[in-house]
């Protein structure tokens, strides 16, 4: 969380056109405290508590961008971003195209994402598919504090609209080194979180830690690829890893059907078909609403489920 706050601070210092807006981002500093201190530092014009209206936030952000601002919009929780899908699909992803590529819409949309925090309904969704499928929108999901900072900074500087989904479990992750000052993680580059030879575990966001744990538990040597940017996708890194291991397990917390894991599987089915020594397996959430939290651990892919899939694949 400090990483996100730090990225905002650095980027707002660096570029006077960057402004932060959202529900409770000012006085309260955000319900996850991502924007703490920004109001005092940059004043109420650049750190704006908005009315409670997500479509209004994103819709006015389009206009703010037209007036020369680089708005960073916070959606308080991923599930409360749904009212803004209309603006996102109709305008945010389309307006550059609508000007024949002449105008820029450097809008960043930040939101917490994912489960594992035992919260009431609609506080633990993983809606990345809605964003990734929308043309004109880039999507990144960090899995480490350093990436949370670097990807957010890259998003803010990007001339294109970028959705940054910050796994809530990351907010609670143990402190870790985050580079001071300016720190950029370019969009579009996956990260080999762990090298291995026998099977590739492909994950992003909160699932990277799960994949890493599974890699620990597996007897075989597992490579863990952290996708980091869902769009544009770093196909090269993914394909190189699968070319090496010949086996892929994709881990995705979101509901299974037409989730982003399917896109990765489709990529492999198209471009890695000769490398594959077995089926491409997906370990995912179910085609059901994220459950009441007493059983949320049954829904969120666990290391055990990943291990099981990998072992099945290894013995294929």
């Amino acid at each position, binding site marked *: 969380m400090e990483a996100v706050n730090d990225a905002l601070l650095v980027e707002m210092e660096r570029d006077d056109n960057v402004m932060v807006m959202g529900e409770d981002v000012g006085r*309260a*500093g955000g*319900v996850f405290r991502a924007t703490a201190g920004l109001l005092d530092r940059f004043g109420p014009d650049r750190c704006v508590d908005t009315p409670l209206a997500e479509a209004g936030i994103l819709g006015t952000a389009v206009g703010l961008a037209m007036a020369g601002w680089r708005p960073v919009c916070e959606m308080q929780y991923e599930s409360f971003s749904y009212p803004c899908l209309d603006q996102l699909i109709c305008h945010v992803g389309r307006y550059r195209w609508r000007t024949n590529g002449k105008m820029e819409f450097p809008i960043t949309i930040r939101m917490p994402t994912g489960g594992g925090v035992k919260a009431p*309904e609609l506080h633990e969704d993983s809606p990345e598919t809605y964003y990734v499928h929308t043309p004109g929108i880039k999507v990144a999901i960090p899995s480490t504090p350093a990436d949370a900072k670097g990807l957010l900074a890259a998003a803010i500087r990007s001339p294109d609209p970028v959705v940054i989904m910050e796994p809530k479990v990351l907010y609670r992750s143990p402190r870790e080194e985050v580079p001071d000052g300016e720190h950029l993680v370019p969009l579009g580059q996956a990260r080999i979180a762990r090298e291995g030879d026998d099977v590739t575990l492909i994950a992003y966001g909160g699932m990277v830690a799960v994949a890493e744990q599974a890699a620990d538990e597996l007897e075989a040597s597992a490579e863990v690829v952290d996708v980091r940017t869902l769009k544009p996708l770093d196909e090269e890194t993914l394909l190189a890893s699968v070319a090496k291991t010949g086996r892929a397990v994709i881990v995705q917390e979101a509901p299974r059907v037409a989730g982003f894991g399917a896109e990765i599987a489709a990529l492999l089915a198209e471009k890695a078909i000769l490398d594959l020594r077995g089926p491409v397996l997906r370990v995912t959430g179910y*085609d059901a609403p994220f459950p009441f939290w007493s059983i949320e651990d*049954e829904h969120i892919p666990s290391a055990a489920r990943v291990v099981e899939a990998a072992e099945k694949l290894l013995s294929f």
Partner: protein
Amino acid sequence: MAQVVPAEGDMRRVIGDGEAQPDGEVEGLTDQDLLELYRAMVLLRTYDERSVVYHRQGRIGTYAIFWGHEAMQAGSFHALDREDWIFPSYRESAIGLLRGMPPETVLAWWRGHPAGWWDPREYGVASIAVPIATHVPHAVGFAWGKKLRGENGCAIAYFGDGATSEGAFHEGANFAAVMRAPVVLFCNNNGWAISTPVSAQTRAATLAGKAAGYGMPGVRVDGGDVLAVFEATRAAVARARAGEGPTLIEAVTYRCAPHATADDPSAYIDAERVEAERANECLGRYERYLRRLGLLGDDLVESIGGEAKEAMRAGIAAAEALPEPDPDLVTRNAYAE
């Protein structure tokens, strides 16, 4: 009709302060009704206070506190018939108790246990709405649907001041008016949407004033005055039943508890104002009113309070005694087939 003492601009008030402000009264309410209202407020208050403790003890999860909102909930509820449906937000999570829902059901919801996922038909209480304002159209559709079927029953939707900024509130209110749906739009204006004051939510002088834009009446009442709330809701329900369509009620209060157990309001709230508001909170006000009327004494206060506490003790015990949920539920119930 009610004898309403005008107060603070256009805000209706019935309960006085025992001094300069005289008490009014609401026509048609029997002594039994008045005590019923008290009992309901005590039950809600007890639910709320115990829940905060249970949360601290780790026995329920994050919890949305409604301390100080009891007059709005009990007062409006009392104007409903059993056939009327309630569409609560998280702030009215326990309103089902007033319909006989056992406390363990609501506690189970806050414990993330499926026993808290009730069948709305059982109590005429829709599921707790977590996303802001999106349940307003549900209440409107329900009420309109009842009307289309020629069936009795209206609906009441509860939402906050912040909710009025959402498109869903607007679309729901407009549908309600256009369809002349028998629905009461009950806005709990507690002055805050988490850390955002109502002054940063709208430039309108009142939220009740928004009703005109939909061609429906808007009423403003003191949300800390259970009788004023009852009276306003009764009138709105009467309009609904008479086929005259929806009413927007703005009940004005001041949130003097954190938004939820996870919230620390110290960064934004005015502590002095909170102090003052707590001193004038709705249950105490109503208790003093009933005492002035001679309807309530220490004994009754104690026995009603004791009953409520006992209900909660039994409720949390029952909630904790529920069997562990079936893990297979993660894949069930999304589809019938």
